[in-house]
């Protein structure tokens, strides 16, 4: 009898122990058997959503471009590149001999790396090289440097058919010009521009992107002496504090002409030099601070730029302004921004000629703003719209700004869950 009893007790205990491995989820019965299990998601449109906006020009700072845009678009846009060889080799050392000053130069050429993506290349494209050096250090100003792109300063060039355009191009340079520089100042500053049988733009590598140009020449009639190569280098302005500026001037882009129309009541993004739009938001605190944002979409209305091809596209990033309120210079604040993708993972891919509403998802940013209220100096609720990359494509977008009519100005569609009491059956 006791054995039977123990068997019964053992079975019952086993059942009890088995229940310890709980299977808790009754979700298969939902939502039919789960009444009231929902939180209402409210939708609202905030218009105007901007406290103000501003457009600032000149981004990135000179010489910080990953690539250098060479563009010639008739009467609307022309950009050029400048490459500094502030130290070039002035002597050669033949085998089994001592160093000798260069008195002869031949086979001089400039090697540039080309990026043909998003390029407009006419059937025949011409690369022209100019001596843009001068006894006066005015390189940081565009007009004097642009003035040196004159025919009498041309020191080299090449015209090449689109079909034969290589990714690494050797542009012949005047041997006598190189020799002159060697024997006089010991430096060379080369201006590069393109032209062709039609609008042309193409990007040239720079030292920032580890694809800087290389100047090569032979400095001896002795064929056993290897050709000399010179990498870009800037020695001016001098001084420790100017090191950043000096490096930026190693190779940089300058705008010779930009006649794209600037509309009123708009904000501009991209173009040459690069423009950024600074957007300061004004969103009711009961939404940002007291609710959970499920979706937030910034709606911009694009104004078409009446130039270029509809197939031309540019990417626009919305980046969060990190400058705290003590930075009152908004242009400076527009340069103190987050990395792309932080809190605003969305971006725009648009054609400058296009029009209509464009949207950027930014719910993560609104959630982040809520948490930033705890900071001693919370940054302003602002983002910067910038082209990506900046100042390396000849595209500029225009959007109606906060002073535009109601239907055109920026607005924000927000879906949110208010903090409510729920869960009472």
């Amino acid at each position, binding site marked *: 009898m006791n054995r039977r009893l123990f068997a019964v007790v053992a079975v019952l205990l086993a059942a009890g122990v088995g229940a*310890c*491995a709980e299977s808790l*989820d009754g979700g298969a*019965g939902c939502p039919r*058997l789960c009444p009231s299990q929902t939180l209402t998601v409210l939708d609202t449109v905030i218009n105007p959503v901007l406290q103000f906006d501003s457009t600032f020009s000149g981004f990135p700072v000179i010489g910080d471009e990953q690539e250098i845009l060479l563009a010639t678009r008739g009467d609307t846009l022309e950009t050029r590149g400048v490459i500094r060889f502030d130290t070039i080799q002035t002597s050669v050392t033949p085998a089994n001999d001592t160093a000798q000053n260069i008195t002869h130069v031949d086979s001089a050429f400039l090697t540039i790396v080309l990026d043909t993506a998003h390029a407009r290349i006419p059937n025949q494209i011409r690369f022209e090289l100019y001596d843009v050096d001068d006894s006066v250090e005015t390189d940081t100003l565009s007009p004097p440097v642009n003035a040196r792109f004159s025919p009498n300063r041309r020191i080299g060039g090449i015209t090449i058919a689109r079909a034969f355009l290589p990714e690494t191009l050797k542009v012949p340079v005047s041997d006598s010009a190189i020799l002159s520089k060697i024997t006089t100042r010991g430096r060379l500053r080369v201006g590069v521009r393109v032209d062709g049988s039609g609008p042309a733009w193409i990007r040239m590598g720079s030292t920032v992107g580890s694809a800087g140009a290389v100047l090569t020449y032979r400095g001896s009639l002795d064929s056993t002496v290897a050709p000399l190569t010179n990498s870009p280098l800037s020695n001016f302005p001098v001084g420790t504090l100017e090191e950043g500026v000096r490096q930026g001037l190693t190779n940089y882009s300058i705008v010779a002409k930009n006649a794209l129309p600037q509309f009123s009541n708009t904000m501009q993004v991209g173009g040459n030099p690069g423009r950024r739009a600074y957007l300061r938001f004004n969103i009711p605190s009961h939404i940002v601070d007291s609710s959970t944002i499920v*979706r937030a979409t910034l709606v911009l209305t694009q104004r078409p730029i009446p130039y270029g091809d509809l197939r031309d596209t540019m990417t626009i990033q919305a980046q969060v302004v990190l400058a705290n309120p003590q930075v009152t210079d908004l242009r400076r604040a527009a340069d103190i921004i987050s990395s792309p993708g932080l809190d605003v993972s969305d971006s725009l891919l648009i054609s400058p000629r296009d029009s209509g509403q464009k949207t950027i998802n930014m719910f993560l940013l609104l959630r982040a703003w809520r948490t930033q209220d705890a900071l001693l100096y919370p940054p302003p609720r602002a983002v910067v719209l910038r082209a990506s990359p900046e100042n390396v494509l000849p595209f500029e977008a225009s959007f109606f700004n906060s002073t535009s009519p109601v239907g055109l100005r920026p607005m924000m569609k927000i879906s949110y869950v208010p903090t409510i009491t729920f*869960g009472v*059956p």
Partner: protein
Amino acid sequence: MLSTRRLRRLRFTPFAIAAALCCAGSALGAQGAVSIQGFGYPGGELSTRALGMGGSIADFDANSPINPAALLVGTRATVYLQYDPEFRWVTGSGLNTSTITARFPLFVVSGKVGSNARVSLSYSSFLDRTWTNTYQDTQTVGGLRIPSNVTALSDGGIADIRGAVSWTFSPKLTIGAGLHVFPGENRVVFGRAFPNDTTSFGAFSQTNTFNFSGSAVSFGVIATPLTHLNIAASARLGFSMHVHQGDSTTLGDAKIPNRVSLSAAYDGIGGTILSARYGNEQWSSMRGLGSPGLSIFDANEFSAGLETAGPKLNSIPMAVRLGFRDRTLPFGFGTQQVRETEVNAGLGVPLSQGRAALDLTLAHALRSAGNSGYSETGWIFSLGIAIKPY
């Protein structure tokens, strides 16, 4: 205030033995079920022994905090612990789901004071609103219908803590009175994620915590008007109860449900007790605690059972129990009240020469919500351990 969460920890502590058997100690239950609507499932505050007899002996059972007069039965100091896991299947309209829920619904300490008085302090689960749901459905956001994953979780419930005393006037008459407080805490979490597009739609989750409070008194009597025929009656008179959000905002006021029950037990057959019980609980007095749409009903209960001496273990007979219970549950599904019918069987195993007892009950419950098309089957395994040191 002693929160339910703290009570849940407390109740685990004395159940170290039972808990040690568990491989996962979470006491979460599951909704998406017929029986756990509204403020939760009322276990009935029955001991394992009483459950084995369908609850019919509850008014006579010292370990069921129903009738304070029933303390007379516990002639020795007793510590009583209980563990009630439930296996549940829900079916209907193409639905077939199962859950396993563990509960530790009862803890009682009682003892004798003098020759005629006995006192007891008990904790029991009054309403258990613990469940977890994860499922997929569609949410409209900004006019778009978006697939989403829902996570809904409720943890906690309302407890009944009773201090009771009984007084025996004669072998044929005992009365008792109890003072009840009903602390509780219920944490409700609701969240929704949008896995198909995490860049455009942000997941959200909100948590609300409710605290409950309430009080009541109970009275009871056990009499033996005729030889072998015992009559018991008990009643609980509820006072106000409240639900707060956090510690401040009062969300609702109501009353602890009044309850009455009447029981009879016949022990004229050697070693056997036959019992029956009828009870009524005015759950609708809790209406003010919930939303206007709360589906709440008064509940009736009828139960019958027997306990008889079974095979002996070390010369002490075991108790064999059978029971039946038919009752309605307080919280309905829509407009439909949920009905529960139980068939129960159990054993009482004496241990250590009667200084301890192990009670085992297996209850089979059928629950249905009118013509809703949904029904539920539950197997409740109840294990009670009573330790009577002296």
